[in-house]
């Protein structure tokens, strides 16, 4: 082993990251090389200097943490509820459109809204051919496919609503649990305060004797 190799791996040696065999080889070189020994000593001094960095003192506020967690869980519940309502609204709109055989199309600067039987086309010169036929003209197979899709959408909406209810119930239980934990904290604090006041009163009596009613100070 030469000095360059040793100095490249010196941090690993000093931090115990090398295999015993490799470490032994490096220790052998250190025993024979004064320059590498001096280098090793300098790195170890610097390690001790690094430990001079200040250490902050922190105390996590658990009641505040529980309140923040409760707020976050309420926000999640509201998010899932909004998502479910949006999906339900979209599914209902699609379902309504299918039931009423609603047709909405743009046709040369006109918005045409028709339901039931297909409305007569407004006579506009050079009307482009429609890409999709009106719903009323679809054959039974396609209609059955669309009804299956509507049914699936309906099931999805119900599943989402059930999921929201389940999450809602779970979140409420969690909120109740957090509230009970907070009350427990408050009771403990009140109990400790009362005990401290009793101890102080006892110490006062022990030191100065009981107060007499109407006694002048």
């Amino acid at each position: 082993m030469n000095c360059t190799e040793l100095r490249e791996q010196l941090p690993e040696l000093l931090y115990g990251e090398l295999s015993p065999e490799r470490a032994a080889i490096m220790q052998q070189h250190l025993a024979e090389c004064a320059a590498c020994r001096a280098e090793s000593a300098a790195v170890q001094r610097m390690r001790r200097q690094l430990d001079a960095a200040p250490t902050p003192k922190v105390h996590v506020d658990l009641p505040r943490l529980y309140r923040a967690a409760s707020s976050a869980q309420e926000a999640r519940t509201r998010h899932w509820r909004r998502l479910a309502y949006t999906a339900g609204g979209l599914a209902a709109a699609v379902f309504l459109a299918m039931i009423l055989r609603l047709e909405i199309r743009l046709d040369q600067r006109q918005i045409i809204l028709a339901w039931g039987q297909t409305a007569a086309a407004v006579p506009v010169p050079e009307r482009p051919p429609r890409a999709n036929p009106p719903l009323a003209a679809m054959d039974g197979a396609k209609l059955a496919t669309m009804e299956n899709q509507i049914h699936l959408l309906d099931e999805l909406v119900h599943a989402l609503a059930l999921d929201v209810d389940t999450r809602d119930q779970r979140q409420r239980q969690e909120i109740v649990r957090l509230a009970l934990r907070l009350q427990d904290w408050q009771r403990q604090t009140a109990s400790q305060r009362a005990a401290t006041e009793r101890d102080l009163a006892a110490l006062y009596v022990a030191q100065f004797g009981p107060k007499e009613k109407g006694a002048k100070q």
Partner: protein
Amino acid sequence: MGAAKTGRDNAALPRSWVQGDPTAFEALVRFWEQPVARFLARLAVEADQVADLCQEVFLRVYLARDRYRETGAFATWLYRIALNVARDSARRRRRTPGSLADQEPASSVATAGAASAQHELAEAVARAIADLPRPMREVLVLRHYEGMRFEAIARLTGTPASTLKSRFAAALARLRSALQAFDDSSEEAQP
């Protein structure tokens, strides 16, 4: 001494917490709040933000209970969250040098002169670490202060261990250069 260095990763507490024991969570917080605060401070988070970010770390831990898997060490999972919180904070704020007003030096010294020198050294170390590029700073803090081995840091950061070792060696070299004045003065003090 980092908690990981002493190997005190109590597997029973995280398991109890995941099963719904609130006292287990509180015990975990009390055990890990100082190591996490130290970790955040040494990642050059502003001193007045350490307490708030520490609070944020444990809030994320609490909310992520359902996602915690006992396959890995709790410490690794916790430090991953702390690292993400520190990175998010750095992205939100422009880094400013922290003050030592709310912090204590690692060792107390009897005389006023020695205390002043120790304070100077502590400030110099804090600044030298803060001046390191973020990737070097992270591996330095995790290896030297938190006692994580390079393989564990590799799993935590998703960076190969060989890359981490190179960064660590480079970080030590930079720090040695930055703290050279203090090393010279300590050498002169020796008989």
